[in-house]
């Protein structure tokens, strides 16, 4: 029997939109609301909810300038967020690497039978 332990998956990053936001911010120095909307292909309302969740977890920082229609929201990833994303991605890769050999073993068993 395999002794592989599944890594604990971070529930905050186990959401498509939040994951997209974090990956985009980790690849850049900073990005504003409009850019994140375009790259994640989501609505402004949904994005603002997810940004608030990530901000609450200290994964990103949000700076706002201006008021009303002229306001400008810029997001930066924090060190905590960067390391959480790294751990999450490593966990996924670990699980994926574990699954691929076991699938191959199952397929070879079937072919033998």
């Amino acid at each position, binding site marked *: 029997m395999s002794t592989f332990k599944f890594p604990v998956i971070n529930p905050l990053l*186990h959401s*498509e939109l939040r*994951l*997209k936001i974090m*990956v*985009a911010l980790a*690849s*850049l*120095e*900073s*990005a*504003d609301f*409009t*850019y994140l909307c*375009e*790259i*994640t292909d989501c609505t402004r309302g949904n994005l603002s909810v997810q940004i608030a969740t990530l901000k609450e977890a200290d994964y990103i920082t949000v700076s706002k300038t201006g008021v009303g229609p002229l306001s400008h929201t810029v997001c930066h990833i924090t060190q905590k967020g960067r390391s959480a994303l790294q751990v999450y*991605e490593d966990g*996924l*890769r670990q*699980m*994926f690497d574990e*699954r691929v050999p076991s699938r191959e073993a199952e397929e070879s068993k079937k072919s033998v039978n």
Partner: protein
Amino acid sequence: MDNQQELDIISSIRGEVMANRELTGENLFLAWGYPTVFFLIVEFVALQVWNEDWCGWIWAGIPLIGIPLMLYFVNEDYERTHHRTLDQNVIMMMWVFIGFACCVGGFAMGMANVYRQCLFPLIGLMCGMGCFMTGIILHFRPKTVCGIIASALSAVPLFLQGDLWHWQLLVTAVIVIIALIIPGHLFRRYVRKSYIKQ
């Protein structure tokens, strides 16, 4: 979402971010280059006409014009692209440091009365090094080459001492043209061409 899908999302977003990165900062070299050359020439002329101590501080006008222009162009770039990459941040921080080093070094040398010996070689060397490193980071060869030439020329003012020291200003203006204005125009043309392609 299974882990295969999540890994796909990570790589696709990374790829999209990399593909959508836009070249920016095409006006920053010019925003610093033209005021620097202007004030150096004004200082040279003022020293030729009046030759008084206050004329030696005209260069301090460079950051007064350069900093607002830089902030304007940085904001304009951000409004256009809506993001800033790590490379752009490194380049900006490097030039801010170079600007501060030149200003602080200039004031310190003025106070220590070694302004005539050391200031202009320092400015030339700083501009040349900044241009060289920017070229390396952006993979833009003209900036790298101009940076090397400007850094090499920054030694020339060291040989213009005594009565000839006013000429250091003109040599430094030439160094700034090589380090900032020529690569600035070449980079601007390159960035404009890349827009047209997109």
